[in-house]
């Protein structure tokens, strides 16, 4: 490792797992169909704000990944304990249709949502509330990587219980929080956090590393005060003295074992 620039360390942060435990809207492929997983209802948000949030996340995810789905892939909506009315269900179905996906079935634990879905003409599966769909995710294995092709713009926060790959720029004012690695094929200008659940062996890679702040596990660093004359693809990783950044071409996994 020849040229590790030293990012400014910042005092350690409170443990960051909480941010990841607030899940977001997520797609997952499963046997030829796509599951659209909605995060469980939170008590803090008002219903309108919760819906606006949910809607924006859904649109972002759809816009960022539409080329990966074949036309007319059936989608099962896993609504969990979300309260959705007929209008909202129709909005979700329409958004999916625009992305050439088909909403086929709604899974819910709420009676009202089940009734609304049935009235709107979707197949419904109502599970008893005890069957917690979160449980399948509470294992130790990371979720499959989230691959998004978009510019992550100011105000957007992407959280994912696995590795996040962004094909595009991550702009200032946005943040990416991943339990695994963060790979940015573009300029990283926002906040990136890898190993948010505590794994300090996670990495942050970017073609152009000019982040507002980077975090790996419990370590935090700012980019150096003076920007470099030239940008290279770089890797941020944790050593005994905190976060370091190295040119990608000089970086090897062995460095972590020193």
């Amino acid at each position: 490792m020849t040229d590790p620039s030293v990012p400014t360390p910042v005092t350690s942060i409170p443990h960051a797992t909480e941010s990841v435990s607030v899940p977001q809207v997520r797609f997952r492929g499963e046997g030829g169909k796509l599951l659209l997983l909605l995060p469980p209802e939170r008590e803090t948000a008002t219903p309108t704000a919760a819906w606006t949030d949910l809607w924006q996340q859904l649109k972002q995810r759809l816009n960022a990944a539409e080329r990966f789905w074949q036309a007319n892939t059936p989608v099962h909506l896993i609504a969990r304990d979300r309260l959705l009315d007929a209008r909202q269900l129709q909005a979700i179905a329409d958004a999916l249709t625009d992305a050439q996906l088909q909403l086929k079935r709604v899974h819910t634990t709420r009676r009202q949502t089940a009734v609304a879905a049935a009235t709107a003409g979707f197949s419904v599966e109502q599970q008893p509330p005890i069957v917690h769909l979160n449980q399948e995710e509470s294992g130790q294995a990371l979720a499959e990587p989230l691959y998004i092709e978009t510019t992550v713009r100011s105000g957007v926060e992407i959280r994912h219980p696995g590795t996040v790959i962004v094909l595009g720029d991550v702009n200032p004012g946005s943040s990416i929080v991943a339990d695994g690695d963060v790979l940015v094929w573009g300029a990283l200008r926002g906040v990136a956090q890898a190993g948010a659940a505590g794994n300090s062996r996670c990495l942050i890679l970017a073609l152009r590393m000019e982040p507002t702040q980077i975090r790996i596990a419990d370590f935090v660093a700012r980019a150096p005060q003076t920007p470099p004359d030239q940008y290279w693809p770089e890797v941020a990783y944790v050593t005994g003295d905190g976060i370091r950044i190295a040119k990608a071409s000089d970086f090897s996994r062995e460095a972590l074992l020193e």
Partner: protein
Amino acid sequence: MSRIIVVTSGKGGVGKTTTTANLGMALAQRGHKVAVVDADFGLRNLDLLLGLENRIVYTAVEVLAGECRLDQALVRDKRQPNLALLPAAQNRTKDAVTPDQMKRLVAALTKAFHYILIDCPAGIEMGFQNAIASAREAIIVTTPEVAAVRDADRVVGLLEANDVKRMYLIINRLRPAMVEQDMMMSVKDVQDILAIPLLGVVPDDERVIVSTNRGEPLVLAENPSSAATAFSNIVRRLEGEKVPFMDLSAPPDDFFSRIRRFFQGHKP
């Protein structure tokens, strides 16, 4: 089919209303029927910039309440018959209108106008939601400042999430001399972040302030200022014409700066 364009920025004071007034007037001069809609309920300004304040009888709120017809609320421009203003109510707040109501209003306007320009309020709350509800295209106005660009970036993200896919960028109040000295973000710096097609760059110009206070859009002036020319070019680009971008490099004011530039080499 008429074009419905929202003029928005996120941050306040970057020139949304000035842009709306000038683009509206320039489009009308080119023979289009144009309606400019003030969506800034409670803090309306567009009427002032167009010099039409004293002609307002009814506003959009009265139209929605059914107290008057839409054509009664529309204020025809005194100089340019192709231009009409739909004023906002000054005595209400943003919550007086819903996105659905805005959609209905704009849909009614599309029957009589080719262009509908919606002047969006600052912020991303209810007023913003109302303004973008019916828009099919958006003009993002920003100044070359970090805060303005940050907010513009946020707004671009929100527009994408609301299915407004066609967006254009206007960089307002650029000071070429400061850019050359590396004291201001350049057009390229702004474009690097926002990554949407550039519609035009409007140089900082004192005559904008004069025109604003007089209620006379810049594009009406006899001998056009550089900002007025920029707005005319923007309108032509908006209509699909290929217009080369103005050379905004600062005039070489003295011998020494010319020498300095010579030795620095040609900067892109």
